[in-house]
């Protein structure tokens, strides 16, 4: 076919006609309530304002059986808040917090989206919703100067769990500063009923100072480009979902997690310690996978996970790229209360000596068993204790004994330890569970007892007492023996 034929008026009008038919959304300028009826396959009935929630809360399931016009009002605000204990950061937010408000709509709904940019904002902002079919996901249409509000509309054609984020240049920085959230487009038939739903969004932060450096920390462009995150967190800050902020469930209940990953760079290996996902809607779509231990959540992507909680205790949410969990903050918690069920999980039944080579007593060829070093002085104790500390303690209490807020109490400048060092010794040899208050913060978790001798426990506690700003002193093996249960 020649070029001329293609461009002839008849062809043009046919092509235009096809374009108009194919166009799912309303034409520009047609935002009245009578036109959106064309938007989805089913007719739009009525109008409502979307309920928006902050993490970890999720708006209630949609009960209606028809599509409607949904008005979403979202405000962009730049605000200073805590990123970790004593660490401040200037967040750019959708709705005042990180992650942004959770938006819940139904497949076929027609959304009128209002994006307001607070007058105190320094930057223009916009929103790219991955649930939008159209150029930029709404980014062009929602580009908003400080102190202004823009409006655009879209039809929710595809069901699924979608990330939204700011897409104003420099995009990486807008996302790195906290501009992301989730929008759920519920399928027409709805999601299966569950007892609890939570909103969990992972993301990482790049700060001028390293992890834990106090004060207002500016964004580090260098680290962001190198993808060297200082913080990897759930719901916007270290401990946002742990300790007192843990979410709750009861034995026998079903739990659904809407999991998103704002990035900007890292892919999450999302895992819940002590659970198996009965169902995962992979990548937030409609494909269901069952019996999943860890699911990948891409940056700018999502997953829906469902599981039934069978036994009481704390379930720990982690990014199983595990140093992110224990060293960068990617820890969340679901506290499950209810009756023990020994048929499913017994707890520790027995702790007996294990002879790797069989039950018979063995001896080394030269007849001498290697003996553990015994400290002859306090200095010895501190030296020997240091090695033990690195072996046993650092994983949770971290290398400077600073702990992880709301999860693992600090050993550094610890009022709990200094008031009675034998409490520390007891925790080492007997374990510790339940509430303790350390430096004014309440910790409610479990420390397992360590398989160490009285001598070793005495050495490690003495080491801790003489380091990390603690008061000094010495604990002897005899004292440990007395507290051992």
């Amino acid at each position: 076919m020649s070029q001329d034929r293609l461009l002839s008026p008849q062809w043009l009008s046919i092509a235009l006609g096809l374009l108009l038919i194919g166009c799912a959304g309303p034409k520009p300028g047609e935002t009245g309530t009578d036109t959106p009826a064309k938007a989805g396959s089913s007719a739009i009935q009525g109008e409502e304002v979307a309920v928006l929630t902050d993490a970890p809360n999720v708006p209630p399931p949609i009960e209606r059986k028809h599509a409607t016009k949904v008005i979403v009002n979202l405000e962009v605000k730049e605000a200073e808040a805590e990123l970790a204990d004593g660490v401040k950061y200037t967040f750019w937010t959708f709705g005042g917090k990180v992650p942004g408000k959770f938006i819940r709509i139904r497949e076929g709904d027609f959304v009128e989206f209002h994006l307001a940019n607070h007058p105190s904002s320094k930057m223009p902002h916009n929103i790219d919703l991955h649930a939008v079919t159209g150029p930029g996901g709404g980014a062009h249409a929602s580009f908003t100067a400080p102190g202004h509000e823009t409006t655009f509309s879209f039809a929710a054609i595809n069901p699924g769990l979608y990330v939204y984020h700011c897409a104003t240049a420099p995009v990486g920085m807008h996302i790195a500063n906290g501009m992301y959230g989730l929008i759920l487009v519920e399928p027409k038939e709805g999601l299966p009923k569950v007892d609890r739903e939570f909103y969990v969004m992972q993301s990482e932060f790049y700060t001028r100072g390293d992890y834990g450096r106090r004060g207002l920390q500016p964004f580090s462009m260098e680290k962001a480009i190198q993808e060297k995150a200082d913080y990897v967190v759930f719901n916007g800050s270290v401990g946002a979902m742990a300790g007192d902020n843990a979410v709750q469930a009861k034995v026998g209940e079903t739990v659904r997690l809407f999991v998103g990953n704002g990035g900007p760079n890292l892919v999450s290996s999302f895992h819940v310690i002590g659970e198996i996902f009965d169902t995962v809607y992979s990548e937030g779509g409609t494909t269901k996978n069952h019996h999943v231990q860890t699911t990948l959540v891409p940056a700018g992507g999502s997953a829906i996970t469902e599981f039934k909680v069978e036994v009481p205790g704390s379930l720990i949410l982690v990014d199983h790229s595990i140093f992110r969990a224990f060293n960068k903050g990617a820890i969340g918690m679901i506290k499950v209360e209810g009756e023990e069920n020994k048929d499913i999980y017994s707890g520790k039944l027995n702790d007996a000596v294990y002879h790797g080579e069989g039950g018979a007593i063995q001896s080394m060829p030269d007849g001498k068993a290697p003996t553990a070093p015994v400290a002859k002085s306090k200095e010895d104790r501190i030296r020997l204790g240091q090695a033990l500390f690195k072996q046993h303690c650092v994983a949770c209490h971290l290398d400077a004994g600073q702990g992880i807020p709301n999860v693992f109490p600090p050993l550094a400048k610890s009022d709990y330890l200094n008031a009675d060092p034998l409490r520390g010794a007891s925790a080492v040899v007997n374990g510790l569970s339940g509430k303790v208050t350390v430096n004014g913060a309440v910790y409610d978790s479990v420390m397992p007892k360590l398989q160490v001798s009285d001598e070793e426990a005495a050495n490690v506690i003495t080491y801790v007492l003489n380091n990390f700003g603690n008061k000094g002193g010495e604990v002897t093996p005899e004292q440990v023996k007395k507290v051992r249960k």
Partner: protein
Amino acid sequence: MRAWLWLLCLTGLAWSAPGLIEVKGGRFTPLYSLEQGPNQQPRSVVVKPFQIQSKAVTNQDYLEFVTENPQWRRSRVATVFVESNYLKHWQSDLAFEPGLAHRPVVFVSWFAARAYCQARGLRLPTILEWEFVGLASERHEDGQADRDFQKRILDWYSRPARLDLPEVSDTFRNVYGVYGLHGVIWEWVDDFQSVMLSGEGREGGGLDRALYCAAGVSGSANPQDYAGYMRYAFRSSLQGRYCLANLGFRCAQGDPSTKGRRR
């Protein structure tokens, strides 16, 4: 020349004197430009010599302007030229809190800024002029290699807007002697809409996409110039009648045409 103007300024012979600084111009590559090379990379351009006010226009300066030009007073201004929050921080048509006198005027539209400069026999600087003089750090005309300088600019962009602005002379002074180009307010430029979208101009060219997502990188001169991205993004979010809490201006003088630039 400079000394003479300063003298005028000090003796009050000119209205709050223009305080113009000579910038000799030169060749540089802007982050974005209408003028593009083979791979849609911006071409370097030559900025002709021009003069720019050493300090942003203050509330006191602006008060003199509206006193002489009643059509720009808050109660009389045509609403096609300004939004309803025009001079919102003033108490009335001709009054503001005394402490504001030497602080930059904000909540002014592009139309208003342009009228002010015209009334003074001046004009708004172009994007290229502003970006050219904005390259300068305390010690170098081209501060792009000074990471510390770049970091400071970025830090300011990262913080929320403040309402308690510093006095114009109490700000960062670059090697030309121009104060407060970074770290105080955003500033209007004459052709703020020329490098890309705004309102109806949105579907005009390929550049409108430049500031969204990854497309931005391919069309820009230096993908790591994040501060530059922010300025271009900010300008492109504006319309001529917008009045914002952190947006002011200063005037310039000279023939603004640049080599290799479409007029």
